[in-house]
């Protein structure tokens, strides 16, 4: 059944290494931008969006690798990654609202009581 579907959808063509490299480049760039953003920005929502971007970078790489290896493992993984990212988003937004009510600020600098 799966083979039939593959044959009909003209999927079985493996992605060449050159094309794969393009996808991986985009993915790595997104991951790096996310990381840099996370480390430099101080707004809690922006910082969270940066980690989301790192998650999505992983998603792009997964789909590309999936096509390159011609198996569905990677595409399956993407769906789970999206689900976890959604769960994390729900948690993050709840936390941010909770914190905002306490301090009236979205800045991470408002939360620097403990040191040492």
């Amino acid at each position, binding site marked *: 059944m*799966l*083979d*039939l579907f*593959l*044959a*009909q959808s003209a999927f*079985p063509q*493996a992605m060449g290494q050159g094309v794969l490299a393009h996808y*991986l480049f985009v993915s790595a760039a997104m*991951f790096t931008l*996310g*990381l840099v953003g*996370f480390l430099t920005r101080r707004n*809690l929502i922006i*910082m*969270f969006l940066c*980690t989301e971007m*790192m*998650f999505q*970078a*992983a998603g792009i*790489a*997964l789909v590309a*690798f999936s096509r*390159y*290896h*011609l*198996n*569905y*493992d*990677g595409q*399956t*993984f993407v769906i*789970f*990654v999206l689900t*976890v990212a959604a*769960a*994390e988003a729900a*948690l*993050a937004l709840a*936390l941010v609202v*909770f*914190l905002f009510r*306490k301090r009236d600020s979205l800045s*991470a600098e408002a*939360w*620097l*009581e*403990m040191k*040492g």
Partner: protein
Amino acid sequence: MAAKIALIWPEIALFITTCLVMLLGLSPNKQWRSLCLPASMVGLTVAGVLAAMGMGVGGPVGDTPLPYLPGFIKVTVAGVGLLLLLLQAGLIDRREEALIASGRAFSALRTNRAEYFALVLFSLTGLMLCASAGDLIWLFLALELTSLPTYVMVAMSSSRNRAQEAGVKYFYLGALGAATFLYGFVMLYGGTGTLQLATMAEVIAAEGVNTITMAGLLLSVLGLAFKIAAVPMHFYTADVYQGAAAPVSAFLAFVPKTAGFVALLLICSAVGWTHGESGNALPEALRIMLWVMAAVTMTVGNVLAILQNSIKRVLAYSSIAHSGYMLVGLLAGPGDGTFGGSGVSAVLFYLAAYGVMNTGAFAVIACLERKAADRGEPMEVEDFDDLRGLWKREPALGVLLAIVTLSLLGFPPLLGFMAKLPLFTSGISAGEIALVVVLGLNSAIAAYYYLRIVKAAMIDDPRGEPGAADSAVHHPAYNLRLVTGLCSALGVVALAILAGQLAERVTEASGYIAPVGPSQPVGSATVLETETLPVQLPMT
């Protein structure tokens, strides 16, 4: 499929308990509501028994190169989890329950008990699932299931601002760590073309480690360093352990750490301790990274612990140091498979021992509460001065603290010593002499701050000014926490006496089947072989 479900009966039992607890905690009837804790403990016990029964079958139960791992981890998690659950008694809704007792109507919206216990159980379920993992999707989901509830637990553990600060720091760095190891997992998939750990082991054994796989390995280890609180992802540890209530800190020191080590063991087993000149080491780049990480982690942890004045921060940095010790075992690998020579069994032994000892230390801190100046919720004991003369004020707590602290220090003949010994021997038999020397030096540094705790509690006189002892409060859960501490101390002694049996169990659990080249056909359901497709094309 059926075999996989048979593997996760403990988790299923735990999940059913979680659903039940979520309902129980919302009951307006106080009797029903207070059943949350007993019900959780019964569920966890059932899960532990199920896991122990599965372990007795004898054959391999998992589908990774470490097939005997799941049973042992699950039984350990159930055992230490029971202590941790007992410690959570009376943490949540204390003020709300007092108001209800004085006549306020019950409102499901204002109470958090159901959610809290559900979160604890979800996290433990995730930890057990980590041990059952056979592929990277499962491992990723299990790691996230372990971590996500703990972020909420930290933020809701206390109404003080510190807990919220700890929650936000923990969540954000946690998300960064998760994104990092997720990217690592993706690279592992990209390099080997499979998500199954067993197949991955075969592919790597046949084709070696290519660049993408190596990048994936390094990123995965880096991301998982967050879970085990190892350098360079350790920055959150002290703040989070200090900000969260002591019972939650105890939880954080065991559950995510164990999940991280299980994941690291699984990933290293997929790469195989079959590289290097001697043929029983990890690939060189990974070996160097773990070596540096282990040495720096234990040194940073111990040196910074010396500089602290807050007890919880000392325990947090010591938790970092203990991760460094365990990394030595991970690096050494299964070796010759005997108890003294296998780093894997040393790590498993240490995880179990550390869980018991550390829970005891945090239980003592959770017992010590005093009235807050601002009449808010009681303050926890803060620095060494607060511990002074504990032996004279509360003899039981003083002795408990001394036992678990000396055990954490690795004082012979206590459990900590028995746990540290195999780390040394496995490191030596793996030829990592320099690292073992670092480990020895660090154990000596650690003596300073552990003995400082013991001295404050057992030798120093109580603080001069009146009121310090008078303002100590015994909240309703004090007794349960004391019992937790007693159980931990008993566990330290009992496990030290039964160390031979435990050693047998961990040696069994660390059985490692070194991967050989791919057996044909590889994962026929998931890997579509490209050559066969053109043949099938004309048929459509």
